[in-house]
């Protein structure tokens, strides 16, 4: 079946059609989430959230466009949501860690960064990380990144370039 046929059937609630539709894209989606979140389990949760959200919003999908960029855009947004929540939690945690632990505040983010692969990517701000993940790993254009992240094309281009510059510096510092 073609992608268009799968989309049509999935829109009518056919879960098998949707499963067929995402089968060829799910690894890309998972890789994107993993690169953005830096943690396998959280990436799997985010990717599953994104698939579910895509299924529920298939009615809004423009059938004339490719499915993968739309799906990956949803994935990027889900990851940004999670990063925002994580930041809020960490801010709260840092504020109270001293009194909870009775000592100096712990640095869970740093610990998590050290444990996970792609820690250089994890040091980037969330939106730059999303932009560079979509650009370098998925070959998204600035316009597609802008559509996925809900920002202007200029901002998307700047995010990508800033991320590249920061990564270059990080790599140089690591060496």
């Amino acid at each position, binding site marked *: 079946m073609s992608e268009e046929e799968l989309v049509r059937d999935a829109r009518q609630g056919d879960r098998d059609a949707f499963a067929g539709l995402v089968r060829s894209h799910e690894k890309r989606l998972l890789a994107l989430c993993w690169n953005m979140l830096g943690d396998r389990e959280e990436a799997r949760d985010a*990717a599953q959230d994104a698939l*579910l959200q895509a*299924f529920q919003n298939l009615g809004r999908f423009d059938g004339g466009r490719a499915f993968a960029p739309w799906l990956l855009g949803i994935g990027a947004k889900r990851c940004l949501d999670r990063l925002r929540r994580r930041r809020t939690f960490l801010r709260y945690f840092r504020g109270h860690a001293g009194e909870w632990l009775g000592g100096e505040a712990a640095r869970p983010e740093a610990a998590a960064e050290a444990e996970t692969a*792609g820690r250089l990517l994890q040091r980037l701000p969330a939106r730059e990380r999303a932009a560079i993940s979509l650009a370098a790993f998925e070959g998204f254009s600035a316009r597609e990144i802008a559509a996925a992240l809900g920002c202007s094309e200029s901002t998307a*281009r700047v995010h990508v370039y800033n991320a*590249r510059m920061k*990564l*270059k510096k990080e790599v140089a510092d690591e060496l």
Partner: protein
Amino acid sequence: MNCSWVRFAYRALPLAPWRAFLLGHHIDRCPRCQGEALGDAAVRALGRTAADLDGEPPLRPFAAANGALRSRAAAWRYAFALFLALAVLGATAWLSRFIPRQSLPEGTVTVLEDAGADRAFAVLEARIGDAPARPVVFKPGQGGMTIVWFEKSAH
């Protein structure tokens, strides 16, 4: 445009349209400025690509969906049970208006107040319905308060 000047201008004014202008007019086409940033291949080496995830088990999006549907169904069940309980309470309250109540007999007390003494009175007659009532006098503590009530007497 001079590379050093462009880089200075890029850093000095952090406005997306300005930076995008510099990117479009110089940085994207200048090998020296591109050398300041990491290329796609090098960025990909820092993260994971779909090819790196060959051993990963497939995602199960509908596991979460089923869970969500189950919890939504449970929420509806609770809401329905609450509605049912409220409906039963309301119906009970409404129906209770129609239950005939046994009316209490009316009581009458005739009292003679002593105009001279401030707190003195005499009970001349007390009746509950047609029958005479028996007075019960109760003096709690030493506060000087007296409580008098009447109850049905045997005759």
